């Protein structure tokens, strides 16, 4: 577009400078706090973080829930996306609209709704006791299960949307061709659909995993201070103990986890293509 490469670079300079000063520099300063002990660079904060049992529990729990939510979102997401792409284009628009609708509501409101639904006098417990599956109402709130449900509902629309757009770009006759050649539905999914929609899965998976790792409101409300995740632990370290060093450690861990997840998913996607 621009004749002169130098000209185009110069035009991006203000925005780049702005981003660097307002975003990159403060983040680097924050992360460096975790690497400094009394004026010199060291990994002491990281060592003390990982040697505390509570921190390890929280770290493993966050990772576990992130993976579980991503896998569940992928499974349900594919099922939903496959149904949606087979609808007429008008109905498809309506369904996508319905799925995107919760995204327009604040996550706080959505999470508080779960407190009412999952509570002892909520719909879930009422249904279970009336059918007779349990005698007394179950204690679902303030547990990992409640956080799992909350995070899944929060991030599933993102997965469904990415998969729908990936499936729309897939050549439709590929499925019919595979069926004609004798593949059963499992083979069709594994060998045809999955490789052709891998980009959608990578995007959706990264969004869901990163979102679950860094979610604050849902674990704070549905887990309370009994079931801590990395974000709620970070909040606690900063507001109660004024401990910015461990907050910086947690922030670094979250960044590393998000990047690794993205790289891993991309690697899995390209690996399939080489076969």
């Amino acid at each position, binding site marked *: 577009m621009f004749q002169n490469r130098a000209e185009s670079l110069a035009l991006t300079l203000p925005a780049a400078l702005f981003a660097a000063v307002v975003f990159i520099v403060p983040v680097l300063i924050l992360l460096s706090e975790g690497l400094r002990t009394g004026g010199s660079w060291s990994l002491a904060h990281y060592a003390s973080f990982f040697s505390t049992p509570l921190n390890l529990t929280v770290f493993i729990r966050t990772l576990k829930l992130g993976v579980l939510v991503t896998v569940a979102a992928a499974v349900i997401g594919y099922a939903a996306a496959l149904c949606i792409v087979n609808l007429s284009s008008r109905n498809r628009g309506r369904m996508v609209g319905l799925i995107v609708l919760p995204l327009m509501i604040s996550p706080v409101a959505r999470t508080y709704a779960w407190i009412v639904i999952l*509570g*002892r*006098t909520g719909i879930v417990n009422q249904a279970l006791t009336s059918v007779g599956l349990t005698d007394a109402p179950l204690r679902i709130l*303030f547990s990992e299960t409640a956080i799992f449900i909350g995070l899944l509902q929060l991030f599933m629309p993102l997965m469904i949307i990415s998969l729908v757009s990936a499936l729309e770009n897939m050549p439709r006759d590929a499925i019919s061709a595979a069926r004609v050649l004798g593949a059963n539905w499992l083979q069709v999914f594994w060998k045809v659909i999955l490789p052709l929609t891998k980009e959608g899965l990578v995007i959706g998976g990264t969004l869901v995993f990163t979102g679950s790792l860094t979610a604050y409101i849902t674990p704070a409300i549905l887990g*309370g*201070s*009994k079931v*801590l995740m990395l974000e709620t632990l970070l909040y*606690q370290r900063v507001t109660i*103990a004024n401990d910015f060093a461990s907050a910086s450690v947690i922030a670094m861990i979250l960044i590393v986890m998000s990047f690794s997840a993205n790289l891993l998913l991309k690697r899995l996607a390209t690996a399939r293509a080489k076969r």
Partner: protein
Amino acid sequence: MKKILLASSTALLLVASSAQAQERKLVISVYGFAQDAFKTILYDPFEAKCGCKVVVETGNSVERLAKLEANKENPVIDMAVVATPDALAATRANLIEPIDVSKLSNYEKLYDIAKDPIGGHMSVGYTFYATSIVYRSDKVTINSWNDLFSKELAGHVAFPNVTTNQGPPTLYMIGKAMGKNTPDLKAPIEKVAEHKDDFVTFYVRSSQLTQLMQQEEIWAAPIGRFAWEGFAKMDLPIKWATPKEGQTGGMNVMILVKGAKNKDLAYQFMDFWLSTEIQTKLAERLIDSPANKEVKLPAAVAENLTYGEDLVKSLDLQPAEAILDNRESWLSQWNAKVGQ
């Protein structure tokens, strides 16, 4: 034409901003609780009286103290209200100065324990609250702090997180009930750790409790009296326990920031807040129990507050030094044993 417009609007802005600068501002740092009511009862009448503007900053105690520390050389805030242990922390950090009580006309009207809670006139108490247990009287009876661990309540009781203002007093009373009342709160924390699966949650905000009680998620929880109004309004049978070991509680105090820019306004404001008229109004709205002993309240209102000389004297308040010196160790013990 454009130039004239630009010039005149700039001039207008400059005049307007300098006019604003003439009005004096009193900057206060307070709890975020019931700010709408405080505005009508306290801030607006004071602004009318002094012809100044009251600028309100809120947040939790840690944030507000951190701000005072950060602005030590050039204070932004003139006066603040904090919990007693935080006032002691501010004294030790050299952030506040003694209050000249001769400038407070309402000082003699205060209860004795509110007059000089941490010594050296570094603070003046303006409200108390009792801490006890709210419970569903149709499900359970509470006669002792140990009843929080009873079998009937297992799975139906909430406990304050040690990081909240209610946490340490509750642990303190449990230690008293167990007969093992040491400042490091070792025995009560271990007992909570043993029973941690029986607790529905370790709440960090009092407002969470009203919702949990309403949804019948919990049947009992330790809480401060300031939250009673929410429970009294529910149509569930809820009572305030009077355990045999007694009630505990806390006192919130006013502090004067060192080097405050508007000291005279701060004194006027503190005196106004401590006056019988304002303390009565705040009490009638069930916001803060009065520290001014001349406040007279009808029985219906008094029942919902921490009111009356006898009750105030009977509260077993944890000493501020004990809280301040042991906070870190309580937090690490809690994280190690109870935290999950």
